[in-house]
């Protein structure tokens, strides 16, 4: 009798375990509500429409000193590259980078690099990246004005804006980047094709 009773208990337990495994809850009640203060502190990304850009301003003229102090050691005095990426350089007007004409033009210039002038589709990304990761020895230490001005310097050296143009949260998203129209979404789908 006792044995049957225990078997009944065990059977009921198994049945209930199976039932609960089949209906996972929508939520588990884990985690804590995020305080707005924390979100504001951590949410530092800048989007192409300018969302996330802080107050501040800077021109290329202001940026020359910042660049010389913070960037030139790795990127070269004029953005020509060195330990780190080339930043300055563009093709002659009218020749699209990377197309057949471009390949023809650069046949005698084997080292024409990817630069802000020919391979960055959004000026806002420059702000985001410089503030996020530069300089590598002390990321996060540049003031908003310093970032605006060094971004202005890079844009001016690539012939995209003038030395006098002021970069702010309003003007930076409006800068027309030469490479903007060349970016297309991934069109590879698998199957019998080479892309």
């Amino acid at each position, binding site marked *: 009798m006792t044995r049957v009773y225990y078997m009944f208990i065990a059977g009921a337990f198994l049945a209930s375990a199976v039932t609960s495994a089949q209906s996972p809850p929508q939520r*588990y009640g884990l985690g804590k509500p*995020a305080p707005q203060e924390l979100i504001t502190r951590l949410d530092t990304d800048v989007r192409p429409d300018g969302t996330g850009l802080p107050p501040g301003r800077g021109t290329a003229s202001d940026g020359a000193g910042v660049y010389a102090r913070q960037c030139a050691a790795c990127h070269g005095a004029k953005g020509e590259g060195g330990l780190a990426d080339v930043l300055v350089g563009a093709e002659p007007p009218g020749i699209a980078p990377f197309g057949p004409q*471009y390949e023809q033009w650069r046949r005698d210039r084997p080292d024409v690099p990817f630069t802000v002038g020919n391979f960055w589709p959004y000026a806002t990304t420059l702000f985001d990246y410089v503030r996020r*990761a530069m300089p*590598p020895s002390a990321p996060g230490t540049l003031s908003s004005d310093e970032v605006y001005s060094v971004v202005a310097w890079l844009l001016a050296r690539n012939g995209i804006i003038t030395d006098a143009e002021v970069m702010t949260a309003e003007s930076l998203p409006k800068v027309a980047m030469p490479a903007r129209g060349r*970016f297309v979404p991934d069109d590879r789908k698998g199957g019998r094709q080479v892309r």
Partner: protein
Amino acid sequence: MRSSQRSSRVRASGGVTRRTLLANALGAAAVTLASENAATQERPESAVRFGRLPNERGSRSPAEQPARMPSAISSRTPLQDLHGTVTPADLHFERHHAGVAVIDPRSYQLLVHGMVDRPMTFSLDEIKRFPSTSRTCFLECSGNFGRQSGERTTVQELCGLTSQTEWTGVRLSTLLREVGTRPQATWFLAEGQDAAMMTRSIPIKEVLDEAMLAYAQNGEALRPEQGYPVRLLLPGIEGNASVKWLHRIELADQPFMTREETSKYTDPLADGRIRQFSLAIDARSVITSPSYPHVVQPGWIEIRGLAWSGRGRIQRVEVSTDRGRSWTPAELQGPVLPKAHTRFRLLWGWDGKPTEIVSRAIDDTGYVQPEWTALQSIRGRRTRYHLNPVTGWTIGADGRVLFAVERVTA
């Protein structure tokens, strides 16, 4: 012998464990027996003495010391030294943009916010309390094609930026249900807590079935260089997007256009366009043996290699032993998992004549690993990521194996 007894006596006076006493006693007995019966018992060196007792953590045989190949920005897995498909955790390739972050698991928290009903933070303990899942898959860096050393290129230099792991963690979908994803959210930003504060935008629909937040690899906690304590893990997708040291997820209705998805990790094409968000890794294979710097003898050679596809399962690997004129299907080691390294083998009788051995992978979408020239005609000469051309090895009359440079030269 006498000196070892002396040293054990010294240790005994300083407090000795039962394990040490046992080992010394057994060792002494074994040596005594060996010397008395030396004339009748010939034993290998390893069988003369009682061995090491069980310990807390194992180590490799001193004779087996596979090593990653480090540069300033990455280190490569020694694929030529590995068997099967799993990469030991300490040999998983590394690629980081500002060094390895050091994170205290006790203060770690993940913030999930943006287009969600309930912005929330999760501690490591809370992340581990969610229902868990495990997934064996490869992870490959988008820039996994090296050949600086010309014909002296090793497998490790050629494509050591791919590794395979059994990852364990929580499904991204579980976490997103917890915070309540708003219907208009189509992308999320993943941000790392390293000095580069690495960021990538990920399309939600494309990854939701398989994406996870991993906290373990091959049965133990993530290695620091793999993103300890928590990383994003996107099976089949370029490694950079599986953001390590993950501390923030922000949902939005469009991509954020970070540096790593605009001026980096994008593909300039021959027609002037630049392909963006090239996330899926196309099928690829490589012969890991024989390879440079092996020297082979005529006779039977088992050609061994790895194949993988970010789109699904490897369906077939074909091997040519005559420079690509004819192809033979290789044997695939099962189980063949989706988006996973798959071991292939082909037994080949080499007649001693110079030749070139080549492999190509075909995945279950029907995609065939392309020749270098076909890739070049689409991508142009400035392409530097997502390169998966057919590669091979030349074998000389002297048996020397060299990387087949011409096969990947424009």
